């Protein structure tokens, strides 16, 4: 009987995961929605506002470009009644401190668009996860007119598009070494000082990324609620594996999908503070995953070295039992 139950449980878990994965595969990269009541720029303008013919055509062209060309890791929602608003989510890339995270951006096309760049707001939750993404939500880029740059680096009315903005944020902003995104810091790239500061910065960014995960699971943006839940459900094991690896001293970003470690990076090691911080915050993340319905997230028990470890393990077991009894 126990054997049968075990088999049933395994089958149930795998079928649930398959359903979640299917949802993610079928989630449209670009789609239109009825309204945007929680959009950051909702109070700028009204649904009844009349826009010029050229503006409407340009926005529709933008929608078309996005609909046909978005990469696999960016999803966008537009609104028929509020054509000036967009919402985008970007998945953090493998090998970066943003890996597996979801990063939300609200976008508004001004009346004079495309003569001026779009307004972009990042759902920071008060966290500064990148030199270009302020904790107030400001996205600081020459392309958006929020930082100075030469003619080529700024918004070009006849060439620049929303697709470019999103692709640039993903690959150029949420990159492997965000520390060097700060103006002037690129000069010390490759030096011992620069690389050590960058490492510490990235480790801190990963911790903030974990907090961003918790933040978005607790309060997902409108029209992405189910996507957030399914994304973290499917990715929860990879995230926990990565955190366990970092606790064990693996360098940040060395975990690749499926829990395999990149051997080239294995020569380095995460800092002591990073190990401690990941260990202390990880339980919060695991608790959120459990609320999503994820099973079997428990860490593999290690042989106790001293009494403190024994106490910790007994505490973990107690928590597990109380959770399963719900």
């Amino acid at each position, binding site marked *: 009987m126990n054997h049968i139950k075990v088999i049933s449980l395994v089958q149930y878990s795998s079928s649930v995961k398959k359903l979640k994965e299917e949802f993610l595969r079928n989630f449209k990269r670009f789609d239109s929605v009825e309204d945007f009541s929680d959009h950051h720029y909702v109070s700028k303008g009204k649904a009844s506002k009349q826009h010029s013919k050229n503006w409407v055509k340009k926005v529709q062209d933008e929608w*078309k*470009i996005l609909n*046909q*060309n978005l*990469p696999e*890791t960016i999803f966008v929602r537009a609104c028929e009644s509020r054509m000036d608003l967009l919402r985008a989510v970007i*998945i*953090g*890339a*493998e*090998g*970066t401190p943003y890996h597996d995270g979801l990063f939300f951006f609200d976008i508004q096309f001004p009346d004079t668009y495309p003569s001026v760049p779009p307004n972009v707001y990042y759902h920071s939750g008060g966290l500064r996860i990148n*030199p*270009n993404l302020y904790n107030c939500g400001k996205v*600081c*880029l*020459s*392309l958006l007119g*929020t*930082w*100075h*740059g030469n003619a*080529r*680096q*700024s918004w*070009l009315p006849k*060439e*620049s*598009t929303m*697709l*470019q903005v999103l*692709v*640039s944020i*993903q*690959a*150029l*902003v*949420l*990159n*492997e070494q965000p520390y060097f*995104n*700060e*103006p002037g810091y690129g000069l010390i790239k490759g030096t011992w000082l620069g690389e050590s500061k960058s490492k510490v910065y990235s480790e801190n960014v990963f911790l903030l990324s974990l907090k961003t995960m918790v933040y978005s699971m607790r309060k997902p943006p409108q029209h992405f609620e189910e996507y957030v839940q399914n994304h973290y459900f499917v990715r929860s094991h990879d995230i926990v594996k990565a955190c366990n690896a970092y606790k064990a001293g693996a360098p940040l970003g060395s975990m690749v999908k499926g829990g395999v470690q990149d051997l*080239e990076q294995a020569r380095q090691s995460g800092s002591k503070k990073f190990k401690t911080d990941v260990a202390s915050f990880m339980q919060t993340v695991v608790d959120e995953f459990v609320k999503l319905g994820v099973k079997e997230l428990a860490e593999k028990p290690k042989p106790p070295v001293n009494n403190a470890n024994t106490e910790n393990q007994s505490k973990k077991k107690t928590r597990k039992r109380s959770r399963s009894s719900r």
Partner: protein
Amino acid sequence: MQVFIIDEDGKKYCVEVEKTTTIADMKTKIYDATGMENAYQYLEHRGKIVLEVHGGTTMDDYKIKACDIFHMSDRMRGG
């Protein structure tokens, strides 16, 4: 093998490369196809920028396969 480039306007280009082609050579081919100078090309591949100086120089080093898609973006600065 062939790889595809999508520029910021959504225009698609096809570029012929080999496993041993360097990133710099690929950018030259992209320049021939699009007119965008090498120095201004930022190529996104699986969510990351392809950089010649980081980790390798050839298609194989970046695990680039036939029919992979690159999004090309212009330069920009952040503060």
